[in-house]
Structures are given as structure tokens and as C-alpha cells.
């Protein structure tokens, strides 16, 4: 048999039918649903008198626009959407971790936590950061609402195969530098469209050394490089993470499953359409300075000068970004002063992220110039575990707010948002204009850098803490 990539294998296992022109009907094993991109899909089912093909494959959770502050009332419009999800799930026999369920959390955090995300699966969700689940050797990608309806009704999607791309992170990450820094630096190198049309496998020594949490951070950001999906081969780290989770196979079934999952890697000699090699051993903590994740620099660098950019379209983009961000070329990144700090989102709200931030914050105080510092755990489980370790006290004593799980200030659909002109050190994944609130200015960073910025009142090198 010819050597296959991980993506080739996942693809092959799921083709139900291949049309002459290369369009495949791809079977979907797991469908994750949240309140914002699903109401119109459920309405579509009703209008055409269709039923879910396999309701037991669907797991739903409200996360995008729920409140995260204790005892805060939800705005009535959001409430309608959350209520619609609950109603749709009960009408169609779909399992929902509802608002009052201790398992509720960000859809991409809870899937893996409960073993709803398994290696070898195809996983979709009406959310672009579904790529997160690829960390488990799964083919996971975001879809639009029409496709949500299509998967609900048929358990399949019409797809064309993407190109194979491999990113090899070689070397070992230096202390204080993590998965978020590696993936931001990668996007800086290949660009926000660098992965267009590709399914990207992340490999190399640095990835092999990463925990599942860190791998999820990397795959989460694959979409910010324009990739269709991000994925990582199954290894012992993967298996150890999954074993014993609620929906993971057990007993004899576990043995069978893990034997199967051990095949989920690219064969030696498998061909990639595009290969990128990236040595992370000298990498510094990263901070974005613009309005696309590709606009990123090391903590010791300065805001670049558009005048030095030769391509006129790029130059204009940089100038526009700097105007929006209110930054001058040549300003050292360390002199940029955030007004707010947000630690959360499906990129960086897992236990390991909170531990990394807490270890920087411990025994220190948030700078007086910081107006708001939020820690929003990714799920009910993360929150409980963090509290068992006393992390909530570390954060609170330093002056952070300790919130309930949800997407929160990652996209600011709820009350957590920036005021116009406010600058934020954020562990989320998008620094687009207005992403965290109209006129808000976002700098994407790792949890450790966000924590250091909160304490120092400016971007600071976490390695000096």
C-alpha cells in the first residue's frame, strides 16, 4: 500500500461515496452544536419535516453569549437564543449540557474533556475553531449553518479533499515559551492565508513533547493560518489523556480502539503538498501588534515600520492596522500598556493555561493601570479543578476576577467587552477590528504573557518573572 498521511487515512475512513468529479460524501462521527449557529439549522429541519439522522452523535452546549459574572442577568436577546437551543435539543432528542449543568463550558473544551472527541473521528461544529479537536488525531473542522443542517439531516457533508501540509516544529521550546507562542510565530511566518486549502498536520519534537492541552492550543489556531483543519498524530500522550473519560471506550473496547488509533499517524515517506520546518528553540514569547494574527512580533522586538514594507498592499494594511491599534512604528513591544487582560477562550482556558498564568501572578498584584483583569475558565470541570488547586484564590488575591465558563471576551457577545479604544492583552485567537468590542484593540498572547502584562501594566517578558 502507498504511504499515507494522517489526513489521507482519516479521509479514506470516512468516504461514503465519491462522485466522478472528486466530490466526496464524508461521514461525520461527532457533531457539536452551540446556540449561535444552530437555530436556523433546526428551523430548516422543521420546515422540511426532516429529523436528525443520528441524534446520539450530537452534543450541544450554550457557550458563546452566556453571562460569566456571578448572578449576572442575561440580556433578553441572548436568553432567547439559549432557550432556543434547549428547546431544539429536547424536541430533537439531542443531549445538551445546559446552562445549569456542571459540565457546561466552551464547546471545544468540553468535547475532549468528556471523551466526546476521540481519535479517528470526523468532528464538525458550526464554529471555525473546531480545528482544536484535531489534536486527538481526528479530522475536525468548522462549518456554516447550512452545513449544520446538512449534517443533522444526513450525518454527512459534501467535501473535496484538501491538500496535505505538514508543519514540523523542531527543537525544544525554551522555558517560558509555549504552544501559543509557537503557533503565533508560525502564522507570522506563513501568513493568515498560509494554510488556505490545506489540512495541516503539526509534527516534530516540540509537538511530541507537548501535553494535550498545548496540542489543542496549536490546532485551535490552525484556522488563523487559513487551514481547513489542523491535526496531530496519536501517541501515548493522546491515549493517556482519553483513557477513563466519560464517553471513551472502556474494557475490551478500549483495547480494540487503542490498537486502531495507533495507526493514526503519517506513514514514513508519505507525500505532502507543502512542508514547513520551524525551529522553535530560539523562540521568544510572542505578542501581536496588528489586526490579523499574522501581525506578530517577539517580546523584545518593536512595532514594525510599514515604510520598510515593499509590497504596497501589505504596507497599506500595516498602516491601517497601526492606526486602528494606535501604535507608532518602532515602539518597543514592552512599552505597550494594556488596559485590560483576558485569560480565557477555547485557545487558552484549560487547567494547564490557568496554572501557567497563576504561577506568574502568585503573590503579586495586578497593576493599578489595569481596568479589568478577567480569568474565565473554559468549562465547569476546569473551574472545579482549578478551585481544588486554589488557583482562584491566587487570581483573586492578585486582583483578577474569577468567572464562570463561557466564550466571554473572546468575542464579546455577552457583557464582557472592551470599550472603544481600550487595549487588551488577550489569550484568545483573533485580534480582528472590533472582535472584543467595537473599537477595542486586541493583542494576542500566551496565558503567561497575559499574566505578566497584568502585573507589570505593560507587556513584559515572562521569563523575567
Amino acid at each position, binding site marked *: 500500500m502507498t504511504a499515507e498521511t494522517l489526513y489521507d487515512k482519516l479521509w479514506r475512513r470516512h468516504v*461514503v*461515496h465519491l*462522485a466522478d*468529479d472528486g*466530490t466526496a*460524501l464524508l*461521514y461525520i462521527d461527532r457533531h457539536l452544536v452551540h446556540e*449561535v*449557529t444552530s437555530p*436556523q439549522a433546526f*428551523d430548516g429541519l422543521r420546515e422540511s419535516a426532516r429529523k436528525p*439522522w*443520528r441524534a*446520539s*452523535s450530537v452534543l450541544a452546549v450554550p457557550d*458563546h453569549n452566556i453571562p460569566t459574572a456571578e448572578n449576572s442577568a442575561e440580556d433578553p*436577546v*441572548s436568553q*432567547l437564543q439559549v432557550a*432556543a437551543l434547549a428547546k431544539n435539543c429536547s424536541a430533537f432528542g439531542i*443531549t445538551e449540557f445546559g446552562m445549569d449543568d456542571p459540565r457546561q463550558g466552551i464547546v471545544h473544551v468540553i468535547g475532549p474533556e468528556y471523551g*466526546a472527541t*476521540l481519535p*479517528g473521528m470526523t468532528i464538525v461544529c458550526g464554529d*471555525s475553531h473546531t480545528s482544536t479537536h484535531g489534536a486527538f488525531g481526528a479530522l475536525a*473542522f*468548522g*462549518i*456554516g*449553518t*447550512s*452545513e449544520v443542517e*446538512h449534517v443533522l*439531516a*444526513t*450525518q454527512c457533508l*459534501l467535501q473535496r479533499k484538501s491538500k496535505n501540509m505538514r508543519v514540523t516544529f523542531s527543537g525544544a521550546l525554551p522555558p517560558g515559551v509555549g504552544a501559543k507562542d509557537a503557533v503565533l510565530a508560525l502564522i507570522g511566518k506563513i501568513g*493568515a*492565508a498560509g494554510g*488556505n*486549502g490545506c489540512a495541516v498536520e503539526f509534527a516534530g519534537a516540540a509537538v511530541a513533547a507537548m501535553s494535550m492541552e498545548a496540542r489543542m492550543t496549536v490546532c485551535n489556531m490552525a484556522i488563523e493560518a*487559513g487551514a*481547513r483543519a489542523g491535526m496531530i498524530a496519536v501517541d501515548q500522550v493522546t491515549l493517556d489523556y482519553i483513557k477513563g473519560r466519560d*464517553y*471513551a*471506550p472502556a474494557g475490551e*473496547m478500549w483495547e*480494540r*480502539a487503542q490498537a486502531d488509533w495507533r495507526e493514526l499517524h503519517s506513514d514514513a515517506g508519505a507525500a505532502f503538498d507543502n512542508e514547513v520546518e520551524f525551529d522553535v528553540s530560539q523562540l521568544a514569547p510572542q505578542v501581536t501588534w496588528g489586526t*490579523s494574527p499574522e501581525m506578530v512580533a517577539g517580546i523584545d522586538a518593536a512595532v514594525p515600520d510599514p515604510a520598510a514594507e515593499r509590497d504596497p498592499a*501589505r504596507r497599506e*494594511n500595516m498602516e491601517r492596522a497601526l492606526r486602528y491599534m494606535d501604535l507608532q512604528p518602532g515602539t518597543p513591544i514592552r512599552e505597550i500598556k494594556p488596559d485590560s487582560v483576558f485569560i480565557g477562550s477555547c485557545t487558552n482556558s484549560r487547567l494547564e493555561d490557568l496554572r501557567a498564568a497563576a504561577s506568574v501572578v502568585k503573590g503579586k498584584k495586578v497593576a493599578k493601570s489595569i481596568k479589568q483583569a478577567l480569568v474565565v475558565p473554559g468549562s465547569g470541570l476546569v473551574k472545579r479543578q482549578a478551585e481544588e488547586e486554589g488557583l482562584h484564590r491566587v487570581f483573586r488575591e492578585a486582583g483578577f476576577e474569577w468567572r464562570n465558563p463561557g466564550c466571554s471576551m473572546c468575542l*464579546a*457577545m455577552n457583557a464582557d467587552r472592551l470599550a472603544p479604544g481600550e487595549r487588551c492583552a488577550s489569550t484568545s485567537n*483573533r485580534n*480582528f*477590528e*472590533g*472582535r472584543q468590542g*467595537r473599537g477595542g484593540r486586541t493583542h494576542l498572547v500566551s496565558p503567561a504573557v497575559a499574566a505578566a502584562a497584568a502585573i507589570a501594566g505593560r507587556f513584559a517578558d515572562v521569563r523575567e518573572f
Partner: protein
Amino acid sequence: MDAFTTLSGLVAPLDRANVDTDAIIPKQYLKSLKRTGFGAVLFDEWRYLDQGDLTSDHAKRRANPDFVLNDARYAGAKILLARRNFGCGSSREHAAWALRDYGFRCVIAPSFADIFFNNCMKNGMLPVALDDARVDALFAAVESQPGYALSVDLPSQKITAPDSEEIPFEIEAAQKHRLLNGLDDIALTLEHADLIRQYEDRRKKEAPWLFGRVA
């Protein structure tokens, strides 16, 4: 889904790369339970000087005179011209719905983000990818010639410029077929229901753990 065959219309130029879905339609409008009515808030934060939400009367908001779509010259445009990586960011189909509701049926750019591209196709809109040089030339023409319009012909995969120049474009055969005929994807897929069931039966034996119920 509505069919798309031919389209003639005014072209509006949006001269920015990496136009993301947050810019196409900001999050507050995603709270709607409907697919319609998003045209008034397309490019909301660029188009208006004040903040709006689902309950605003958009006709009463302050328009940003510097934003291209507020230029009377482009009123009624049906074709949007943009730069590389158009529609990057989230999966929100509201971005396609908003463009469509505003009146755009075709977007021309050097490249598109994957999910956005699919979302257009599902809504009777045609995304056309042309090479950078071609897009540069179109920007120059649109900006220098008021009333610049193009004719898009999907059956022959050609765009015709006012000077009769013909610009060919690529589209996958299956997508073209579905768009031309306005086919309901779900109904088409369900014609393969037997194949889907056969697949499931086989996989249940090979990998039963994939079929466990979440509860």
C-alpha cells in the same frame, strides 16, 4: 436554494486584504434567530459611526461618509470586489446572508477563506477567485470609471467587462451544477441514504466505539 445563472451589475471595490467575518457582520447581530434582515448591518463597524445592535433602527444611525458602500456611486452594486483571503475568521453564515441581503450575488477576490466560500455557495452566491494582477486591474478600472459594471455568466464561466473583454474563471463542476440549478443539497445527499446506512453498518462492526451515545 436560489439558482445562480447570470448576473449583470455595478461593482463596488473594497480595497482591503483579510476582510474577516467579524468585519462583515459583528457579533451582536448573531443573536438573531433568523437568516434574513442582515443587509442593513453588513460591514456595520465600517459603515456606521455609532454602535448598533439588533434593536437599532439602522436608518437613523450615522453613516460613515468615508466608507465605500456609503458612496452614492456604488449604490445598488451587485458585485463586490475585494482582496486576498476574503471572509477569513469565523464560520458564521451570517456573513454570506448579510452580503446577499444587501444585494451582492457575486464576490470577486484573489482568494477566499474555505468556510466562507462554502457558505456563499449554499446561499446562491458566486465567489470568483481571479489572480492578483487581474484583481488589480479591476480595482483600477472600477475606481477610474464611474458606473463600472460587469456581466457574470456562470454557464460559460466568463465575466465580461464594459470594453467587451472576457475574463474566464474556474469553478468545480459539482458546485457549478448545484448553483445553476439551485439544488437542495440535503435532498441530493438523501438520495444516497442507502449508501450511508451501508457505511454505518460496516463501521459499527469495525469501530463500534464511534457510535456510543453521548448522554
